[in-house]
């Protein structure tokens, strides 16, 4: 078997998620090649060549791949992928964008967001926002797979010495062009990848009160989230929503403040390692999933939390 892993990167550095995808490839077994497609991405190729378990790094360095447009990447990977038994990438927004195109062009199914490898053709993935876990067998000759990075411990970033081969394949579908990019302005980590997330719910009462949470988030270096109820009430923007229809998060620490714990919210955060709930309603369902529950008025508890954290951090 031979596996092609498409690296996730920003043209200057290799994303750690790629090391988790290589780990998934190792679990499948076989030779592992890594494709680095981008523009002026030599440093990424070098990093990929050092990753544990990689045999060969293929580099497609061209302006047409600079912004990772799905149409161009899809055409490139579909052509290269024909010679492999498995094609893998991380289930970030880039992988989710181009990978289904690859599957369709190869006329095979895609297995999305796997969290475990059972065998070379059988994989485990969450469905219903993690409320059920499916074991799926892929019948096609080429398996096209996206990998949820949190499901696999990354391979070592150093120690490997893969060969690096420059490709001269330029695929420009001519369908789309990059216009602009707006990276998140805040210094706070991205919600989906933050190690700590602090979220507020309807109990926050208004948007102004979220400032209290921001202060705690800044102390902890945490990402900020919210329940659907808080978003629907207009306290905070939609992109902060954690839940089945919002962002799915699995940080080391999740702090739920004034969140009752509706099913739709729990679906988005119950894979967190440690969950803290602060709520004045002792019967709130959030306490059934919380490792540490504090029954208290959040307007007293949150300022106290800030003070206590200042003492220990």
């Amino acid at each position: 078997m031979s596996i092609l892993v498409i690296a996730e990167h920003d043209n200057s550095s290799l994303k750690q998620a790629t090391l988790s995808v290589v780990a998934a490839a190792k679990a499948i077994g076989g030779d592992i090649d890594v494709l680095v497609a981008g523009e002026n991405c030599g440093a990424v190729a070098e990093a990929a060549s050092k990753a544990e378990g990689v045999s060969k790094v293929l580099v497609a360095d061209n302006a047409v791949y600079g912004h990772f447009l799905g149409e161009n990447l899809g055409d490139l990977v579909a052509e290269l992928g024909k010679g492999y038994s498995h094609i893998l990438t991380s289930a970030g927004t880039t992988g989710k964008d181009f990978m289904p195109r690859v599957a369709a062009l190869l006329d095979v199914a895609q297995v999305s967001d796997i969290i475990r490898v059972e065998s070379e053709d059988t994989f485990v993935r969450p469905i219903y926002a993690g409320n059920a876990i499916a074991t799926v067998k892929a019948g096609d000759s080429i398996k096209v797979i996206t990998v949820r990075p949190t499901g696999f411990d990354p391979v070592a970033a150093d120690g490997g010495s893969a060969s690096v081969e420059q490709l001269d394949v330029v695929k420009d579908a001519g369908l789309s062009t990059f216009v602009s990019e707006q990276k998140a302005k805040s210094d706070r980590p991205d919600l989906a990848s933050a190690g700590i997330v602090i979220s507020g719910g309807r109990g926050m009462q208004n948007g102004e009160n979220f400032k209290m949470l921001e202060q705690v988030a800044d102390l902890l270096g945490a990402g900020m989230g919210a329940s659907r109820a808080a978003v629907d009430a207009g306290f905070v923007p939609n992109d902060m929503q954690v839940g089945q229809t919002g962002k799915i998060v699995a940080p080391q620490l999740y702090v739920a403040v004034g969140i009752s714990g509706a099913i739709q919210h729990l679906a988005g955060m119950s894979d967190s390692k440690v969950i803290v709930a602060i709520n004045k309603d002792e019967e709130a369902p959030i306490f059934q999933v919380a490792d540490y529950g504090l029954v208290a008025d959040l307007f007293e508890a949150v300022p106290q939390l800030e003070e206590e954290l200042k003492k220990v951090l």
Partner: protein
Amino acid sequence: MKVLVAVKRVIDYNVKVRVKPDNTGVDLANVKMAMNPFCEIAVEEAVRLKEKGVANEIVVVSIGPKACQEQIRTALALGADRGIHVETDEDVQSLEAAKLLKAVVEKEEPQLVILGKQSIDSDNNQTGQMLAALTGMAQGTFASEVVVDGEKVNVTREVDGGLMTVSLKLPAVVTTDLRLNEPRYASLPNIMKAKKKPLDVMSPADLGVEITPRLTTLKVEAPAARQAGVKVADVAELVDKLKNEAKVI
């Protein structure tokens, strides 16, 4: 221009999902079903394009058993003009859904196809991109803003760590993310009017597509249950536990 919107019937997002005791799937018997939330956003966006005078016709399509017509009627009540139901009781996976939609696209020749980025049951996030690849169309996935500008459409996409705007040649496929809009509710008069709007029913065979599932689900299990932990007395104890017991801060 003509806009085609694909919608899927799924379990209502507020329903507690229960895995069947025999681990063959999720129990959908007597469970409330609804339009997939991302598909609602897709319908809303099409309706807004029509209200702005950009779109002149909205065709809504759904694939699945007879009951899907409820979701088509919902879309018609929200402002779509006519419906297409591709009726099948088979398990339609993303690739086959994309092939069926491709056949519909070839018949209808829309300038814009809008789909939800994923359905909240299978969570695949594939169909829109597959449809775009099969039809040779550009794609703007995870859209938070859609601006049609002559022969092009500018789509602002929700990507990891921020936003990215791309310009797509029309015809194009757009898949919706949460921030694109907030769907309206259908009014009672519109629900009544929707009952009279045209709805064509066809089979996968009519569209020349054979349904051949490529993926076999071997089993479906409930996730490992979380145990409720402990209640702490005050904030000081909480911080102490987080630092010294859980070691997460």
